[in-house]
């Protein structure tokens, strides 16, 4: 089950679940994102947004995704056997939902996204993946 989906931009953070622990997990998984992005030679040339499995702390698996504008999507799931293709698919749909939400003229860039439609879309995407 996907327990947390986060959008991390310059300032913004939208949580699907505001448990403190997930905050921590998302926050520290950014380290891994940084590492992946800054050390392309280590993990091969990075020419796709999908960052793959970031780290498996304890009972969770954390997946990351980086948009062209350096906005990170972090996904925390309790599913221990997740296929990468599923994750890729999820992030692609999530990305388009995010783009739609940000394209809203009333959205203030670099502020928390407060769109109800966005929340609904995210929850449907999450549910579709189980």
């Amino acid at each position, binding site marked *: 089950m996907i327990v947390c989906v986060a959008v991390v931009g310059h*300032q913004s*953070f939208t949580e699907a679940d*505001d448990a*403190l622990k997930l*905050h*921590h*997990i998302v*926050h*520290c*998984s*950014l*380290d*891994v994102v*940084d*590492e992946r992005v*800054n050390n392309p030679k280590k993990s091969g040339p990075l020419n796709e947004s999908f960052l793959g499995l970031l780290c498996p702390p304890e009972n969770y698996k954390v997946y990351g995704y980086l948009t062209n504008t350096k906005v990170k999507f972090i996904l925390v799931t309790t599913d221990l056997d997740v296929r990468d293709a599923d994750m890729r698919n999820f992030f692609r749909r999530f990305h388009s939902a995010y783009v739609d939400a940000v394209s809203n003229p009333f959205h203030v860039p670099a502020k928390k996204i407060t769109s109800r439609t966005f929340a609904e879309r995210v929850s449907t995407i999450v549910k579709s993946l189980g």
Partner: protein
Amino acid sequence: MQGSKIFPTCFQTHLKSKLYSLLLHLKFCHHGFNFSTRSLHRQVSFSDHEAFDHPVACLLVVSSKDEDPINKFVDLFNTNQLPSLLNDGAMDPKILKHYLLVHDNQDGMSENTTKILAAMRSTFGSNDCRLLCINSSEDGLVEHQENPWVPHKTDASPSQHLGCFLNIDDLDEIKNVMQDLSSKHIIPHMEQKIRVLNQQVSATRKGFRNQIKNLWWRKGKDDTPDNSNGLMYTFSSIESQIRVLADYAFMLRDYELALSNYRLLSTDYKLDKAWKRYAGVQEMMGLTYFMMDQLRKDAESCMENAFNTYLKMGPPGQQNATRCGLWWVEMLKTRYQYKEAASVYFRISGEEPLHSAVMLEQASYCYLFSKPPMLRKYGFHLVLSGDLYKKCDQIKHAIRTYRGALSVFKGTTWSHIKDHVHFHIGKWYAFLGMFDVAIKHMLEVLACIHQSKMTQELFLRDFLQVVQKTGKMFEVLRLQLPVIDIPSLKVVFEDHRTYASPTAISVRESIWRSLEEDITPSWSTVKTNWLESQPRLLSKKYKESNVCVAGEAIKVDIGFKNPLQISISISNVSLICEHSAKSDEMVPDASSTTTAHLNDEEKRKPTTSGELSSDASSFTLSEVDISLEGGEKVVAQLTVTPRVEGMLKIIGVRWKLSGSIIGFYNFESDLVKKKVANGRRKTKQPMSDNLKFIVIKSLPKLEGFIQQLPKTVYTGDLRRLALELRNPSETSVRNIKMKISHPRFLNIGNEEVMDMGIPACLEKKAKFVQSDAHTRINKVSDTVFLYSEDTLIHGGTPFLWPIWLRAAVPGNISLYIIIYYEMEDISTVMRYRTLRMHYNVEVLPSLDVSFQISPCPSRLQEFLVWMDVVNRTHSESFQVHQLSSVGNEWKISLLQPIEAIFPSEFLMAGQALSFFFKLKNGRKSVTTEDNVSSPAPLEGTDVRLGHGSNEELFDISRSPLADFHHFERVHQRMSDQEHPHKVDFILISRPRRSDSDPGLNSSVNLFSHHACHFSIANASPIWWLMDGPRIMHHNFTASFCEIRLRMTIRNSSDAIASIRISTFDSIPGGSPLSDATSVPPGNQAGWHDISLLNDIKVTSEVLGTRVGKSQLAECASPFIWSGSSSTRVKLEPMSTIELPLQICVFSPGTYDLSNYNLHWNLLFSDDEGNRGAGIRESSGTCTGHPYNLTVLQSA
């Protein structure tokens, strides 16, 4: 030293010390962890599964004072005193023994010692015995630089003065003994043993044959139950021998040898499923690989293997697993693989909370040291470890880790995490009783907007609990609850400008300035007057800082906002001010010392309940209590009232949150950010100056308001109000002036109308003495009124003055009134003050009145006036009372009796009605003087429109109506040219009196609608009228018809007019209006070439529209003008003449007799001509008025 046993662990510490030094090398590795790892190593040593800690040699030490040293030596190595491992066969009890006799020189050199030594030599062999003499210092005062045992013994208390009798030689001697022991005895012994064991192992295990044999033998033992805990391998078993061999080789740095033996062993143990031993061997293999510094992968895989095997064993292997993990970590650290090290630490941390807390903390440090540093993971692991520390009640450690984590989260927007960390640190500090720090951390989480309501409540409640536990009143600068809304900060003070109401304060200063301009003396004039004593005081300083008056409150509006969802209460909100007594020299620095002192006192003084005014204080502060609901914003008005002259500075604001903690806010600290200084002053000074006030001696201050000013009125409503002025102080003010911004709406009345009702003062009176109205008021201009000199207001007695309000146009109207007054006492700094009043009046539309004027076709100098009245209100109905025309040359009268056209008398809501009036020019003579004085007493005529004939008509020349009419005229003026042929109307109506609500009626009185500057269409001074029969019957068979007409001409100008009437017989276009039968078919009239008549000269612009009419020339006219074609007359001013005219008609039909021109020329006398030329025309040509004449064939 007596009876101690020393196992030669110094050799095996070789590796350890390297790792230790690494540990020490890492700065982050604090002492506590170091110590704990060391004790861990000590604890897990001497295990039966490995030979690393097995004794190699035994040092037996006996004092020379002992009675029977030889027996003592024997006794020391007695079997029943040995550790169990040696006795139960896990270790080889046959170890190298060394005998040391220690002699204390303080006891004196005794022969006995040498004797004992000799006996020892004979008993134990000469090689293994030695004598050590210590404490040879004479006075026992040898100071050592440092405790010589420090590196080896950590738990020695520093207070003990160890080794004070040891001199340098003794220390050297001790060192020598130990070096001898290790180099001459232990190492050779070990080498010897390695040789022996190696031979043994080669014989039994090396070679192909031995290996096969071994394999077969092992297979055979497969069925034996796994009893790894039991003493399956004694020291004499071949496996143990190999292990000892490998360990010895490792210790003596023969890593190749060690490795080969370890490898040999590991397969054996693996086959035997002796997991603990297997793991131990794997561990050692890993270390050996590491020491050989090659095959890193192998080293790590060995370590991992060992680690996992230990873990598999469950709880008994836990400690070993930890130790193994630590080795592993150290290996990784030396290779700077901090990230991997961190993950190993993470794996080491097991179930036990304290254990894992320590490990997680170490892991976090590894993340910090990794490259690039993984700060977020560092923070995360610190938080995890802090939680575990807390679980084991290690609060101090928990706080330490959390504080470390705080540095990561500081400055980020991850507020949930931040709040969590701060809140817990705060709570833990409070638990430890360190309330100051606790509160400091708790303060950080107070304004947690993002948290849920429950969390907010929890935070606030815990915070308040902590504060209460301290039992003190804490004072916090920049308390985050509530949020001070600095942009809303507004300081209102009254210097020479005073305000009657809060609404007046919010009006822009520029509006007041522009209004005040012409009634206040400018500062510069005051200053340049050097004869006065005031300019000295009005120094630069005065101008730069704000001036306020002692005894008058300075109001500060501050917005408090509650960011939380829960409600909070703040009490004792007051300003923080400082007051410094003004020195006579007005040197700013002179007051600074007292300022600071007072400031501190004021600031730190805990707020007591009730009024904050103390007699010692030179100012009074107001206090308010506010309760803020969730998300609410409240603007509180705080006041400070200076009591004595001097300098007052507003520093900040102070409040008490939930009755337990005091918050401060310093305005000055926000200086840079703040742009809006105070609402009233548009100065560019920094804010600190804006909050600084010079307090001057108390002055009288007028208070004023307008009584009964309605909020909403209908357009045209005219009512009397009263302006009440009051001066509470005994000092009187004088020289009062008043200025009104909208004289169209508000006008000053005469004093005597104060006692009269509104209709009464407007009713027509036979005698009306107007002169006495101006005794106390001088109108300086249209908007400025000057009260007479003797008007003094003082002592709190109200001063009433009537004011007229007339709602001129619908809309929202802001009325500004400024009252200027001067101080009776001229010694004050401030000479004058102004009172600013502001009122908003909403004016609703009531009656729409429009007029149309057209000349009366049949009468000379008469006009028809068409008045449309529409009631625009929703509910009101009006009684139209009277219509007055203004101007002495016009007489207005109804066309029809009012009962006929307006039977209902009331105009209902939404109803429209038209009235027709006759307007007659009744001007007798106009002198030029009349034109100049425009607002002079209005004369005019009135028409009663109401039914009751007994009701009095209102006199439009009485004060309020006439005044307002004047302003309406000014306002509605279309061009600046004053034209006499304009007429103004005033419609006066009254609202319907409803009997049900008599209270309302008393206030609603009268409506007046003014319509000005209606131009009369004909501007020519010459009037004429054709008069004659309209229908004629004539028998055309007999003769043509001769008709006489009469033209009446009037000269209404002031000059003699020369008038020429020229007729022409051509028909104006389309003029034969006769029916088709009457016109012969052969008549070609109307079908000729059209050309403009050249001889018709049209100069009058007023009649320009008529020029376009084409006229047919050379047309056989059905009628001709008989008599002279041109008549010239001279007309005296204001006189009328009648001219006879005659036409001949030849056939029946309808004729338009307008084909004549009238030329007029005013013959001015010389001076009049020059003057009048600019205003009106001196000559003109008019074409004739249409005059239709029908001639019928008589029977």
